[in-house]
């Protein structure tokens, strides 16, 4: 078949930013699937509408997720994308790779799919874009033989992800990579076999800068923090000042809790610090997080569908999360949350929405957490209190 002309998307081969169309062009000579994808995309650009049908149920044996079925509604015109399924492959924590591992993944996808990938998908997975139903099992067999496994899709624990953490960041207040890996391994069944009311995401952020957007994108946001004094190197503070940094204007005046003062020497009233990271971000050589490190747990964030977007909110102001016992305590809390959500959540109701519906106090009672003032930005301002008769539990 003669190649369809694609002048509209070819326009996107120009310009300084790397072009996804050029990526498709790298493959189209040897991949009929990509040639048809280019053609169908040109149709979409001409007609200003997508040409993919709803996903069907496809997958690998014994798993309920990890594969997104995709079918073209123009399969007569573009038969090579009649099936164009996506496979999600669980990324290594922190997205570190060796060149050898990358070549292995590339070769597997060269043999079994379109050769197009996302490095990475929104949740963190390696995404293999476009293959047929018949290729799913052989791809899976090669992936697992190479030590890789599928990620999550549907109403399951989605693939957990982590920031670069202690591997390359001085601000990591706990080992995000280790926790991410541990959670992923512990909950393999919950990852591969959807049995929840809806999706559940973990994101491990090493500090309040939150480079993995956990507070917006994870049902359970684990954000590193510290409890004791910020470590100050006064000699380095002086070097910043000598190098021209306006410490008064850029650091002191911009501290949200107004707990820093400077008169040739930097003083921090650590009891008033809210751990926003601003001063550390401006003077990374002079300031470091304290030594008593752990994490704040926040729960419930999600995108708008269906009852509106939510940010995660604090359920545990501080936990230590390093040794096996602390891991187990955290996972026990997770299991209690899942159990309550399983029993009370409606179909396609995220845990944050369940809390909105039944009330945070009821949720805290159910999972065995005590109410703490760190959980709120302010107490309620309405008088509609559900009083409980004395001695009675909810």
């Amino acid at each position, binding site marked *: 078949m003669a190649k369809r002309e694609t002048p*509209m998307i070819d*326009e*996107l081969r120009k*310009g*300084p*930013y790397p*072009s*996804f169309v050029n*990526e498709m062009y790298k*493959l189209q000579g040897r991949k009929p699937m990509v040639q048809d*994808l280019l053609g169908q995309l040109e149709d*979409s*650009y001409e007609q*200003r*509408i*997508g040409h*993919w049908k*709803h*996903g069907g149920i496809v997958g690998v044996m014994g798993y309920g997720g990890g594969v997104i079925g995709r079918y073209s509604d123009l399969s007569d015109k573009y038969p090579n994308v009649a099936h164009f399924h*996506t496979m999600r492959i669980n990324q*290594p924590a*922190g997205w*570190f*790779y*060796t*060149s*050898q*591992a*990358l*070549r292995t993944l*590339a070769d597997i996808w060269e043999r079994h799919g379109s050769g*197009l990938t996302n*490095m*990475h998908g929104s949740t*963190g997975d390696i995404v293999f874009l476009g293959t047929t139903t018949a290729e799913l099992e052989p791809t899976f*067999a090669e992936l*697992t033989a190479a*030590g890789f*496994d599928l990620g999550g899709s549907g109403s399951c624990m989605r693939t957990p992800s982590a920031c*670069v953490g202690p591997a*390359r*960041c001085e601000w*990591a207040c706990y080992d995000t990579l280790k926790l991410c890996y541990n959670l992923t391994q512990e909950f393999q069944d919950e990852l591969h076999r959807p049995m929840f009311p809806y999706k559940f995401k973990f994101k491990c952020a090493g500090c309040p*800068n939150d480079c993995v*957007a956990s507070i917006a*994108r994870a049902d359970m946001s684990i954000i590193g923090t510290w409890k004791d004094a910020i470590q100050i190197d006064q000699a380095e503070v002086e070097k910043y000042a000598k190098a021209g940094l306006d410490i008064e204007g850029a650091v002191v005046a*911009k501290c949200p809790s107004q707990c820093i003062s400077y008169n040739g020497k930097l003083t921090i009233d650590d009891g008033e610090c809210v*751990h*926003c990271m601003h001063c550390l*971000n401006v003077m990374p*050589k002079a300031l470091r997080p304290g030594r008593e490190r752990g994490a704040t747990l926040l729960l419930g964030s999600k*995108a*708008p*569908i*269906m*009852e*509106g*977007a939510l*940010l995660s909110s604090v359920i545990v102001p501080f936990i230590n999360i390093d040794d096996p016992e602390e891991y187990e305590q955290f996972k026990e809390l997770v299991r209690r949350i899942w159990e309550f959500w399983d029993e009370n959540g409606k*179909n396609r109701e995220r845990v944050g929405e369940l809390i909105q519906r039944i009330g945070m106090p009821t949720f805290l009672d159910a999972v065995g957490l005590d109410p703490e003032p760190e959980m709120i930005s302010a107490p309620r301002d309405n008088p509609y209190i559900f009083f409980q008769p004395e001695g009675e539990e909810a």
Partner: protein
Amino acid sequence: MAEAPAKRITDIGPPHFEKFLPPIVKKNYGKWKYHEILKPGVMVHTAESGDKLYTVRAASPRLIAVDTIRMFADLADKYCGGHLRFTSRNNVEFLLTDPSKIDALVADLAKEGFPIGGLGAQISNIVHTQGWVHCHSAATDASGVVKSVMDALMPYFKGEKRLPAKTRVALACCLNMCGAVHCSDIAILGVHTRPPKVKNDVLKKLCEVPTTVAACPTGAIRPANVDGFESVTVEEQLCMYCANCYTVCPAMPLNNPDTDGLSIWVGGKVSNARSEPRFSKLAIPFLPNNPPRWPEVVQAVTNIIEVYAANARNFERIGDWIERIGWPRFFKLTGIQFTRYHIDDFKHAGWTFKRSAHIKFDQD
């Protein structure tokens, strides 16, 4: 004779990350002391041991061919002892121990069409979704809009133009927001603007009526017998086109070439630095879907960035800047028209009403 089936391996999870860490990272794991941005796209982390790890961050379209993955692998072998990583915003980072190799790596990347940048107070890659390349519910393409916008924003990616603080742009091609754009400095969001067109003749065959009814956040969908078919009706004035019904029922399509488009949202953030994380707010309710270059979207985003760069103080994210100057001034400075659509009329709308007499009046 048929081959005996190989033992099927399942539930192994991802490879342990330690297998992929460069030796310098293993040695200094958890013992990094500080970092410095040396120039746009290049930073160095110094460990307590004195070891230095140089990171070169390169742009990526996120949608990449295996050929590019192999090219990255070759560069990692040539310059980084075979190690690299990707970021949460889909950029690729090369990790070097020898700073004398940086320039050659950057030159090789440039030859392949992958510029470096996106560190610190710059624009990093636009986190985005699949769009028309792979999604059934997309109200617009994703990769094409992102490419067009990033082409225009390159000076801010490469550090040729200054920004007051880091600026994170994200795109989601429908309200499902797999890109979770709702906490971005600038969010580009694909929107539908008309109710679903119910395919009454096939609905019962494809969908469960109760599930479809329950999918509507506003209760706009009711069970109904239409022309003899067991189906649903949509109370059109209750519909805000979220497409949740279409997600659960293919017989409720909303995609429409003439009425789908894009909206622009501003001022969100996820970082706790200075101010608390917050949602992006509506700046522009609708821009037309205009492939292949989406000039209206490119112009709108560029305009907001330029006005922000010219007016905000150092360290102010877009949301911090708007909070200081107030929304009326934001609309005035950017020239964006304020409309009835900017005033919330969904649940709990009152929280975004002005509930004080604190109003600024221009003195010019």
